[in-house]
């Protein structure tokens, strides 16, 4: 009897066995989430590939399925665009700016986060409150903090940074920090580190607290200095977490739009690919070109990720 039941067509999806019931329940439970994620993210992402090969503008956005096929035209237009291309050391273009901006701000975010994690790993009174305060930049709305920053950096003498630097005698005339090439990019990087270091801090703090105390005791016995202990005990223990944080933050910084858009509007050498994509799509209303530039953004990211996971992360697992 049992063998017949197993080979009957009722086996699997429609069977009444406990496993099948559980599997059906599982799919039923996860279906709404899966539908939303696939419908609103994954399907549009694939659709975006399709759009990037078509000529889509405001006039045919409602009739997008009949948009004329243009081959690689959009991609050529993006790559040859003045704002995209690398020109010289003074004018990097969006592609190079995005890469440098993402790497430098990710690295700085992690360094600041590591510093904060080490500070919060010391036992002191009010550590809980300090941890709460350290997390504030990460949870506060970007609109508010970006405008507060841009006003601190105000080009007039009434800007706080101008006032401080001028009273210290470091500069003679007020500077327009967010409207000067170089300075603007540096400040956007600083803003990233200020806003996102708590993320790195949280992950590192959790790992720091899990490090075996006997490792430090052994190092003490060997007469290691604080710096030696940090370099030979702490850092190796943090390596894997550092690798993962770097990857996650790099991905998100790469795709980040609002911070730069709100601080500089993408001007003065801070035009990154997400902002350029926004401009192609919603200033020029050339949606095909916008789709192509966002595809280029994703391709750069995926190439880097494959490289990173294959080469850098493989080393950390050993």
């Amino acid at each position, binding site marked *: 009897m049992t063998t017949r039941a197993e080979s009957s067509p009722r086996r699997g999806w429609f069977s009444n066995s406990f496993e099948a019931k559980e599997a059906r329940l599982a799919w039923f439970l996860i279906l709404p989430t899966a539908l939303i994620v696939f419908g609103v993210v994954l399907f549009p992402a694939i659709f975006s590939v399709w759009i990037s090969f078509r000529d889509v503008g405001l006039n045919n956005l*409602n009739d997008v399925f009949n948009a004329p096929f243009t081959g690689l035209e959009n991609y050529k237009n993006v790559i040859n665009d003045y704002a995209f291309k690398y020109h010289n050391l003074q004018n990097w273009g969006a592609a190079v700016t995005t890469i440098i901006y993402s790497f430098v701000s990710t690295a700085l975010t992690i360094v600041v986060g590591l510093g904060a994690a080490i500070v919060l790993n010391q036992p002191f009174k009010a550590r809980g409150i300090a941890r709460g305060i350290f997390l504030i930049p990460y949870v506060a709305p970007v609109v508010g903090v970006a405008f507060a920053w841009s006003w601190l950096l105000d080009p007039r003498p009434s800007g706080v940074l101008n006032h401080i630097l001028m009273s210290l005698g470091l500069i003679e005339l007020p500077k327009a920090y967010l409207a000067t090439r170089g300075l603007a990019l540096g400040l956007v990087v600083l803003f990233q580190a200020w806003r996102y270091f708590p993320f790195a801090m949280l992950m590192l703090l959790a790992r720091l607290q899990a490090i075996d105390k006997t490792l430090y005791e052994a190092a003490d016995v060997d007469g290691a200095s604080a710096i030696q202990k940090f370099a030979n005990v702490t850092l190796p223990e943090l390596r894997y977490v550092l690798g993962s944080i770097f990857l996650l933050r790099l991905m998100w910084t790469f795709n980040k739009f609002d911070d730069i858009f709100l601080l500089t509007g993408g001007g003065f050498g801070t035009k990154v690919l*997400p902002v350029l994509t926004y401009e192609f799509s919603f200033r020029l209303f050339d949606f095909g070109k916008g789709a192509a530039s966002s595809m280029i953004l994703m391709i750069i990211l995926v190439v880097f990720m494959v490289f990173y996971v294959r080469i850098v992360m493989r080393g950390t697992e050993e």
Partner: protein
Amino acid sequence: MDKQMNFIDRMGRWLNWQRFFFLLVLLVFLTTILFPFYWMVSSSFKTGSEIAGRTPTYIPSALRLDAYRELFDSEWDHFQNFGANIVNSAKVAIPTALIAVILSTLGAYAIARLKFRGKDLLLNGILLVYLIPGVLLIIPLFAMLAQLARRIGFDVQDNLSVLVLTYLAQTLPVALYMLANYFRTIPAEIEQAGLIDGCSRIGVIWRITLPLAVPALVSVGMYTFMIAWNEFLYALVFLNNRDMFTMPIKINTIFSDPSPRPHVVMAASTVMTIPVIVLFLGMERFLAEGLSAGGVKG
């Protein structure tokens, strides 16, 4: 004896120096973190001349509410009707949080407890969301929704439900991840006991698992609420009508006003920021755990 004293003496000095250095670093961190927020709040009380003076005014001369009047008082000049924007933000953030908690609870339970074919594929697919830039999705999403809207009959622009849908898609993967991790920490034996006592699966989830997972549910709810409350890009693209603006877009509009009124921008930012920070500090214990468990996107 002498040698020992010397050693203790040196230890004491070393500790002091270290403590001084530690306090200095802590102070630098706290100042850099808090000063922009202090600037935001204090500036919202300043007068026009205090803002545009020759030197910055660090402490406003009085707690003037002019900026807040402009936001909320319909009798005032340039009345901004900011109350409507707060309502819009709440209309987006509260449903996003509630729906995300419900859906991710169901999904996370399936992932943590039930065996089914295609689980890994599904999970990886859902995590792909991390990789896809937000700007990439807007155009295809708009085109798709426009098609759908014409058939079913709704508006894509100025429709807060569309925003809720996009925020859900952005937050559900992380919520799912956070909750599944939490469910795994609840011993399966407790549930099996319930199953043996004759509870159905749904009964077990409702009576046993959920009450144990309240901290995680609160943290997921808070996290999704904050994402929806703070979101800028999608709201910027999908909202055109001033009456439908959420707070971030409204603040951006006030900021870009031809006659700059920074104190109003800062007042609006204060109104938007302070509730989030208060809510966050109140629930920090839950949240810090949740944030690091899921690796919140942002």
